[in-house]
């Protein structure tokens, strides 16, 4: 049924003229968190929602999920108005700075949400174990959520968002507080979700990550949409190329310049590529863990 739904509704999320005002103060003062936002999230793509703090990203997401009612405008999820419970049938949601029932263990928590979402009875245990494994929490599954660290909360939140195999996954800052390895895992997971034909809506302040995983992005500022488009078109520069070669001695570099000049071209810059800090981090952590594993029988 989901494939049919996708083809029937090319937009996974449709916001039309959405405005959200919050009352602040006693004298009827209003704060406009989202301002006349019209946005389409195409099915099967990874969509990044960007913007500075307080620009209305989380508010937009809550409107999509029917947790907030727009002051003006309408919002549909796979063609179903957000106000209806039916619109949330196939949606997984990771809230920002998530917080869960601290008196449950990680496995109990994911199990609870699996049951709420109607995962077939016989599949609870296998499914819960599977998603906990994806997010790398197998070792801590039986600990109380109240004892989890910030990044672990984020991970268990991700498990809970994916447990019922949703077609649309909405992640509000999934990488906040997660270590670089976890962050890279999350990128991998998002790409896998996309390859399975699911739609992902993600907000993040890690622009490098957004650039790696997103097909399209939208940038909000004070509730208004200031830019929207395909990532490849926005960041790609068709008129420039970077060639990376082994370090050249000065003589050969000069030769290269003359060779280019003979063809009417200019070598604009010569730089030393630097390893990215996250690459170094991942490499060193992987090595240390390898050493640990060897040390421990």
């Amino acid at each position, binding site marked *: 049924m989901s494939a049919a739904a996708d083809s029937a509704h090319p937009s996974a999320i449709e916001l039309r003229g959405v405005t959200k005002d919050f009352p602040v103060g006693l004298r009827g003062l209003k704060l406009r968190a989202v301002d006349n936002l019209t946005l389409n999230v195409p099915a099967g793509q990874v969509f990044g929602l960007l913007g500075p703090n307080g620009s209305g990203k989380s508010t937009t997401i809550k409107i999509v999920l029917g*947790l907030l009612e727009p002051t003006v405008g309408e919002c549909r999820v796979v063609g179903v108005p957000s106000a209806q*419970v039916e*619109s*949330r*049938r196939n949606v997984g949601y990771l809230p920002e700075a998530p*917080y869960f029932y601290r008196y*449950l263990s990680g496995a109990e928590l994911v199990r609870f949400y699996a049951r*709420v*979402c109607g995962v077939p009875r016989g599949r609870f245990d296998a499914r819960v174990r599977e998603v906990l494994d994806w997010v790398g929490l197998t070792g801590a599954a039986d600990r109380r959520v109240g004892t989890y660290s910030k990044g672990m909360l984020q991970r268990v939140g991700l498990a809970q968002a994916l447990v019922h195999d949703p077609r649309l996954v909405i992640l509000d800052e999934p990488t906040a507080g997660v270590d670089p390895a976890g962050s890279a895992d999350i990128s991998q997971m998002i790409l896998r979700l996309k390859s399975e034909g699911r739609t992902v809506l993600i907000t993040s302040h890690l622009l490098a990550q957004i650039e790696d995983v997103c097909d399209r992005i939208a940038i909000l500022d004070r509730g208004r949409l200031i830019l929207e488009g395909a990532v490849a078109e926005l960041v790609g520069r068709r008129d420039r190329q970077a060639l990376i070669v082994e370090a050249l001695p000065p003589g050969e570099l000069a030769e290269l310049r003359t060779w280019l000049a003979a063809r009417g071209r200019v070598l604009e810059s010569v730089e030393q590529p630097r390893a990215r800090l996250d690459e170094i981090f991942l490499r060193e952590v992987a090595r240390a863990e390898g050493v640990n594993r060897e040390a421990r029988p």
Partner: protein
Amino acid sequence: MSAERVPFSCGRTSLIAGNTFLEAVRQRLFLFLVLLAVALVTGARFFQSFDFGPDLGVASLKFTFDFGLGALVFFGSTLTITATAQLFFSEIENRTALTLLAKPVWRAEFIFGKFLGAWAVVGVFCALLTGLLAGLLWFRAREVLAANPEAFLHGGPVAPGDLVIVCVLQWLKFGVLAMITLLVASFSNTNLFSVVMGFFVLVICHLQSFAHQAYAHAEESSVAIGLMIKTLARVFPDFRLFDLAEQAGHEGGVNAALALRAAAYALTYVFVFGFLAVYSFRRREI
């Protein structure tokens, strides 16, 4: 293509109720019950040690009964209001409601799930106290009989069946109180406000019988006041209807018809206030 309907689900409601109950259990709410039980037994023994005398056996039993029931009513009301408000607001304040309501869950399922969870907590409390009271009464009756074998010739102790009925009625009353608290919580922003309002309504509901009396005399006074009193009498349930303890000690025991009527009265109010709570919670911004 229209999406498949998601009907109201009793399964999800009971899941939420079960989780709410589990929260109460794991927060050690029941530790308070053990303390209360110990205090109650000690208290009852203490008061018995100095008065009455051997031939006032029935009076002494009546005292134990009133003492225990008083504790049930007082602590039960307190527990109902505070636990319901707490279990509701822990979900709102910790923002766990955000995750839960982003699932295909009806707001009605949330409200009734919270209600059933809280009511179950109060139910465990009532069952425990009833059992304890039954034990105390039985124990005391044996003592009285040993001292004076003819003590119960004119009216015996409260029958265990009556004791259970009286306590179940109190539990039903707590159900109404829990739903009223939830109704207040559904639109209020703070736990404290809900608790204070809960106690306020509790007092009003206990004073309802006076309002009914006033209503009887209202014919004579002005139409406006009469109308106001009439409305008040309808809006707030009369908690005195659940108090059949007076009958329990007497000949013939508790009137079953009255008890059934009180039960139906309670369930009606639970549903009416429940629907109001769902209505007010429906548009709440989480």
